């Protein structure tokens, strides 16, 4: 069992990051981005394009299509600007370098409608770290949770799994 004698990929410094709340980011939800996102997916429901249709269907304005939770405010003067809520830097690294990254999966839980005009505060934290060996060799599986709030009320929670190998 040579594998078991290897130093774990997950260092104590990494483990200490689990559950630590990241700095909140502001996510804007606007009509133009909703239309662009819906068009990119290929949605045909008019509620994503036509505000009158959205209101007739009972929404406050254009609703977010599934998977869209607002756009972070781009500001080139801020480090890591524009690449989502997790712009706090890479954080502690594994004991051996892992060069490749795969998006493992996504889950979104919705607690309320999110519509154009909403401004959300998103805060992410590392929820889980796991190391495993698979077809790609040794892998580090990272689960991040992001909580989205509007006026102090949680409206969505997303869980994203990343695979480094």
């Amino acid at each position, binding site marked *: 069992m040579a594998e078991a004698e290897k130093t774990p990929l997950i260092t104590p410094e990494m483990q200490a990051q689990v559950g630590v709340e990241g700095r909140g980011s502001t996510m804007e939800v606007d009509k133009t*981005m909703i239309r*662009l*996102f819906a*068009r*990119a*997916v*290929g*949605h*045909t*429901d008019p*509620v994503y394009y036509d505000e009158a249709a959205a209101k007739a*269907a*009972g*929404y406050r304005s254009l609703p977010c*299509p*599934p*998977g*869209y939770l607002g*756009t*972070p405010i781009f500001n080139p003067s801020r480090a890591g600007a*524009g*690449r*989502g809520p997790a712009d706090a830097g890479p954080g502690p690294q594994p004991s051996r370098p892992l060069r*490749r990254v*795969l*998006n*493992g*999966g*996504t*889950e*979104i*839980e*919705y607690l309320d*409608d999110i519509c154009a005009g909403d401004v959300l505060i998103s805060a992410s934290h590392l929820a889980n770290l796991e190391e495993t060996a698979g077809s790609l060799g040794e892998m580090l599986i990272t689960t991040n949770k992001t909580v989205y709030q509007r006026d102090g009320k949680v409206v969505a929670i997303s*869980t994203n*799994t990343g695979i480094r190998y």
Partner: protein
Amino acid sequence: MGAKWADVTVGMNIPELKKNCSTQQLVLWAAGSGDFYQIHYDQDFAKGTGLPSIIVHGALKNGFLGQLVHDWVGNEGRIKKYGCSYRGMDMPNQDIVCKGVVTKKYEENGEKLVDLEIWTEAPDGRKTTPGYATVKLP
């Protein structure tokens, strides 16, 4: 018009959604999602990382599954939760067929709910993006 809870039965399939991404759609998605990783639009870059060609964004397939479920649920119901895993690659200009089947029908906290198994299927039959959803129906 969306699905009605009374009409749903466990084991029933929901209407399929067929997609076939042009490279242009991938660029549109890059702009819409903010994911500008070059493996999705730069053939040389993609091959340089060992991929056979540019590949479809996982999150776009997540968006397709969202459309699959939304189009079935309509606007009187709501998606309460949905997710998927990115298990296999899909390429542009190949069919990606989104499918779903009802796995559970129940009431909870006064809401009429349905659980679904959802997935995308590549031309060779591989389920490249298996997932699940919980929806509320009228």
